């Protein structure tokens, strides 16, 4: 199970992304972070801290659950579906810049669902996408604005992101299906 990012590297990566965000947006004015549950919202909180350290300005964060917007729901009459969790966006997104945050960018379908979900909350001025890992194999025309690490993978592999808040450790690893 090769580890491609350890805790130190993850910390440096997030710090670098935070600097890129500040540079591109010339500060954090009207900038809000929205993380996709469950690990994107953890990353959003960490990025918010990193941004606050750079600019000394508070940055608002929210969490988005995209389960009800998935395009692969309801394909069978009876079957398991992912647990629906609460969406918490405690601010108006109208005319705001939204940084959408997820852990792994793969087919792009999660991001498509997240964009639909976000638009139901209002009309943001701009949405930018932050991902910790881009593993390729896009099925939709979606591209991240900030990428922690590009990881070429095969379809048989799976990328695991673990975060200390949810999994007890900071680490990204690649496993093949039948390991």
């Amino acid at each position, binding site marked *: 199970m090769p580890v491609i990012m350890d805790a130190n590297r993850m910390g440096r990566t997030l710090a670098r992304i935070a600097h890129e965000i500040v540079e591109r947006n010339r500060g954090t004015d009207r900038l809000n972070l929205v993380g996709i*549950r*469950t*690990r994107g919202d953890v990353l959003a909180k960490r990025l918010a801290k990193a941004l606050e350290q750079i600019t000394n300005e508070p940055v608002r964060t929210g969490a988005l*659950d995209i*389960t*009800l*917007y*998935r395009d*692969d*729901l*309801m*394909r*069978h*009459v*009876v*079957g*398991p*579906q*992912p*647990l*629906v*969790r*609460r*969406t*918490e966006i405690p601010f108006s997104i109208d005319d705001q810049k939204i940084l959408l945050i*997820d*852990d*792994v*960018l*793969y087919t792009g379908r*999660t991001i498509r669902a997240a964009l*639909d*979900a976000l638009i*139901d*909350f*209002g009309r943001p001025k701009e949405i930018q996408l932050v991902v910790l890992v881009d593993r390729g194999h896009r099925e939709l025309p979606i591209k991240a604005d900030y990428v922690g690490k590009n990881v070429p993978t095969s379809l048989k592999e*799976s*990328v*695991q*992101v673990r975060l200390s808040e*949810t*999994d007890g450790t900071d680490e990204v690893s690649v496993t093949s299906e039948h390991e």
Partner: protein
Amino acid sequence: MITQQVVAPISKLRHKDLLGISDLTPEEILLILDTAEAMREIGERPIKKVPALRGKTVVNLFFEASTRTRTSFEIAEKRLSADTLNIAAGTSSVVKGETLVDTAMNLEAMAPDMIVVRHAYSGACHMLSRICKAGIINAGDGMHEHPTQALLDAFTIREHKKRIKGLKVAIIGDLLHSRVLRSNVQLLTKLGADVWVSGPPTLMPPGIERQGVRTTTSVDEAVEGADVVMLLRVQLERMQGSFFPSLREYFSVFGMTRERLRRAKEDVIIMHPGPMNRGVEIDSEVADGPYSVILEQVANGVAVRMAVLYLLAGGAEHETAA
């Protein structure tokens, strides 16, 4: 990504239908309540709609009068983007003599995905579930069960008390004719509440103690130290014969008044599934008083029914990688 941060110990309902609480495990009940928490947030948004049930057809088939339950189901279906249609017995071919089975088979021929059924006969939903491919949701069958009412009651209790296990819940009123009672007793005992039921001896269902509840004909004993007091409507339309001398006498012996309520815990909540008969099972002062959560029950009904519809409609296998 594999999502592991699970609140309920399971993430699916292995059922086509929701016929009664008796078919649900405690884990399944908790899953529905947890999912309802997420659904409630949708009702607080500016755009109160998500695409989860897009392209699904849900028929609301109501053979008995209903405002709350039918509207609540309809709002829940619309918030999930399902296509809904309502059939009320009074305006359907039922008045021309069509049987329930024929009505259902004709509906089934038009391939709805789910049918929400209310019927005066206990077991009507069970029968339909055997002949229909569509999922059947019981919205009240005779004197048998009303599962979504019990679920929304549990949701409301959990919201106020943060738990259900160990609470003293007093259910008072026309026990005999109440499907709300039967569903609530099963749900609350499955989740470990201490359930007391009280009402006139003539309206006490035979063998109710075997369901794990305590019975008393003294309202005061039932209310003593209660965390939750739930009143049930005196269902005159189901009564053939006289069960008590007069409504006035019923109120004086079993009606919930502010004086009787003093015996309950200080933070007691008052519940009623509606419709209320003010001055019969409940005094207006109590119904509109500070402990009453009766309108919250109605509001929570939408979220709970959204959860049930979503979980029963089912989805594809969860992608393991994002």
